[in-house]
């Protein structure tokens, strides 16, 4: 990011606390986004992702903390800007198109009729239809569109009011895999081309990593880690967090007094004493396999191969441990084969408490 200090963040959420009934749904949550940044909120169902979006949109009133859009304070103790004054583009799950309006009227819905002339509104609607690749669909009714098309229209409707921030709540979750990837790329490109600040809620790890500038990992109403996709993927702050951004092996390990780490793929033969016991996190793709088995190498037996096409997940028994290793194609390993394993990648050690 450019000079961060001089720049006002597009969105600044600090120490947010939200109660629904007596249940604390968000707790001391902070998040900031620079203009044009796209953030992905990643976390399991029920961790508070949607609640955070709805708090930002003003649909829920937080009990503590504050929310700023740029310099404007929209939520802080008694201050609560109602949702219709926030200029937020909100795309909820499954789009929520207005079933009684056609596509053009859906898109034009939020454009202020007191400010813009009919021609201007028609023009904007046309632009939005073109922008989202929905030219010619203006006269259709929502129920005549496929799920992906409905999502496009929902996005067009959100962008039509030139929002300061766009909030997308699992917009692709109802779509099948192929369409999903394609539409996701389209949507992200569109948001980037408009330099729109956006938050994308997802529970799909890959979707978050591929789309966002910032990944915010949520657990039980808190953001437990945030950073660039590379950071959160390669430097998780705990074994549990590692799993939430991708497949991970969590193996027994101990840190020795000489600074080296002893684990199954790196047995230390020195006499240094174990100082701290804990776990090491390895990504399955960080283990390399080879057929050159020797007495010096760490060897294992392939028990299963799950073939995914572009890569494969190989289950290997090493001593009494079961490891998962991801190997790229082309594949020349077979079940029952003995292979040598080598860990090439960062050593992420987490001491036991």
């Amino acid at each position: 990011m450019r000079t961060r200090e001089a720049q006002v963040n597009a969105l600044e959420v600090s120490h947010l606390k939200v109660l629904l009934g007596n249940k604390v749904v968000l707790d001391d949550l902070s998040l900031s986004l620079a203009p044009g940044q796209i953030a992905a909120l990643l976390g399991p169902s029920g961790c508070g992702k949607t609640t955070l979006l709805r708090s930002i949109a003003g649909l829920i009133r937080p009990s503590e903390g504050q929310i700023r859009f740029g310099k404007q304070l929209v939520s802080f103790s008694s201050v609560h800007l109602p949702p219709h004054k926030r200029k937020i583009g909100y795309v909820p799950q499954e789009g929520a198109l207005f079933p009684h309006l056609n596509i053009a009227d859906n898109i034009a819905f939020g454009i202020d009729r007191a400010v813009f002339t009919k021609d201007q509104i028609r023009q904007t609607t046309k632009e939005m239809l073109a922008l989202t690749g929905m030219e010619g669909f203006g006269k259709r009714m929502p129920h005549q569109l496929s799920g992906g098309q409905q999502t496009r229209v929902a996005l067009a409707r959100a962008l039509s009011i030139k929002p300061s921030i766009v909030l997308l709540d699992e917009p692709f979750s109802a779509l099948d895999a192929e369409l999903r990837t394609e539409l996701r790329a389209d949507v992200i490109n569109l948001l980037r081309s408009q330099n729109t600040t956006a938050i994308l809620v997802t529970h799909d790890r890959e979707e978050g990593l591929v789309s966002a500038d910032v990944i915010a990992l949520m657990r039980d109403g808190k953001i437990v880690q945030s950073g660039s996709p590379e950071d959160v993927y390669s430097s998780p702050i705990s074994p549990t967090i590692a799993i939430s951004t991708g497949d991970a092996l969590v193996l027994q390990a101990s840190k020795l007094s000489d600074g080296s780490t002893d684990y199954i793929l790196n047995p230390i033969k020195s006499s240094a004493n174990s100082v701290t016991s804990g776990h090491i996190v390895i990504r399955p793709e960080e283990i390399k396999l080879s057929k050159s088995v020797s007495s010096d190498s760490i060897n294992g037996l392939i028990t299963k191969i799950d073939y995914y096409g572009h890569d494969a997940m190989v289950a290997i028994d090493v001593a009494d441990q079961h490891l998962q290793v991801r190997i790229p194609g082309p594949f020349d390993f077979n079940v029952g084969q003995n292979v040598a394993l080598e860990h090439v990648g960062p050593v992420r050690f987490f001491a036991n408490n």
Partner: protein
Amino acid sequence: MLTTSPAPIEQQHLPVAQSRSGWRVALLAAVGAVAAISMIPFVYLLVRASDKPIDEIIQLLFRQKTLEVLATTASLVVCVVVINLILGVAIASGLHFVQLPMKRLLVIPTVLPLAIPSYVFTYTWVALVPSFSGFAAAVFILSISTIPYIILATLAGLRSIDGSQIEVARSLGLNPAQVFSRVVFPQIRGHVSAGALLAGLYTMSDFGAVSLLNVETLTVSIQNMYRASYDRSAAAVISFVLIAFSILFVMANESIKGRSTNKQLLKSLSVKTPLIQKAYLQFASVLIIIAFAIVAVIVPFYVLLTRFFSNPVAIDWASLASATFSTVSVAALGAFIALVLSAPLGYLLSGAPSRFATVTNKMVVIAHALPGVVVGLALVSIGSKLGGLYQTTFLLALAYAILFLAKSVTSMSSSLARVPNGVKDVAATLGMNQWAVVKKVIAPIAAPGIGIGTILVFLTAMKELPATLMLRPTGFETLATQIWSSGSINRFNEAAPYALILVLVAAIPTFLISRPDKEEQSFNYENAGGPSERS
């Protein structure tokens, strides 16, 4: 509320292998028979009216008396419908959108008045206010009798709107009032209009309240002509005015419904509507509901109970018991006939309905719009020609079935449509023949809905007055006729026990099958941190 429930989400109708033609022919014949039965009143009235020379008909139609009565009926309907629309939509919106204390208690008055016939309402209010009479009184009584139709229909419409649409509209810059007018209302218009139709038809066909309150509407005119002068041809002619009025109403509703394209996009709602917590709205909602509860529930029950317990006249327990038995048995027979008649038509309508089925359904709906007076008049005349049927409880039960067949058909077809096609196909591939599929798959899935429809016919039949008065065998007394023949208002104390029993017998099932509180129940649970918090 079955008669106004929104159409079930359309299933895709895959081409089905042509079923055996014998079965098909039998089904169509059965539907034809149902159509014929529904048309009995029309055919009779047509024949009757044509007895009169045309110039006499014209004279009858345009004499001042007729025009006055027509004007009274029309203004009564307009007043009741307008009041209902305002209050009903307001109460339903309050219940749906506003966070209210004890919501489960507050919804009770939205259905309970359905159990109280308009003539019982009238009795109780007259007992309380002796000078209670005239047009304004009729507007009042018929409004409280019919508001539940609009409340329930509106609630059903409101519940079909996904809360996320409201949230999106808010985020797009609409204030709550704009959200209501641009997002909510266009989508519930069809429901509201259906509720208004029911209220309007009820008002048009009401006989008990208006005649007690000395308001001469078309139904009272018809009854008078029939009773006083036995001029059935004139009664038939005036009946046609009433029918034309009803059909006009049904058509207006159809056109409103047709324009509101509330095609559901989603199979289930993803977001519950957020509840408003503004104090003044909470206060206003509770106030208006309590006020309604007082005039429509508490006053009638209070009067009935006090009259029952402080009755100077000894209660005739034997006649009370026999009237209760007669009421229940003839209403049950009527509901059973309606159930049987609705089966073939309901079955045809649940699939991809043919033109024939749709037209037949229209006939049934129009028969539903016929006032009891008209159907009674038709059957009483035909019955006297049939000899054996005349003066039997069967003829009365048949009148109930014709009058309320539409309720039964609606619940039959929507319950059958709820059976997924895939399930039927799977059952067939598992080796079941057509009858086994019906018995083991379709019936168990559809039975609860069909049962509710049948109970609804039963309840409505219990309260029916004008047709009962005309068609009952001599000496056969139901609760309704006993209340009526305790007759003049000063003898209300004698009617009180019958009215109380009727209301109590009707109230409990009315509440149980409507269950307007059900939604709130689950909503509270989720609001308290149940599984619907998705994020």
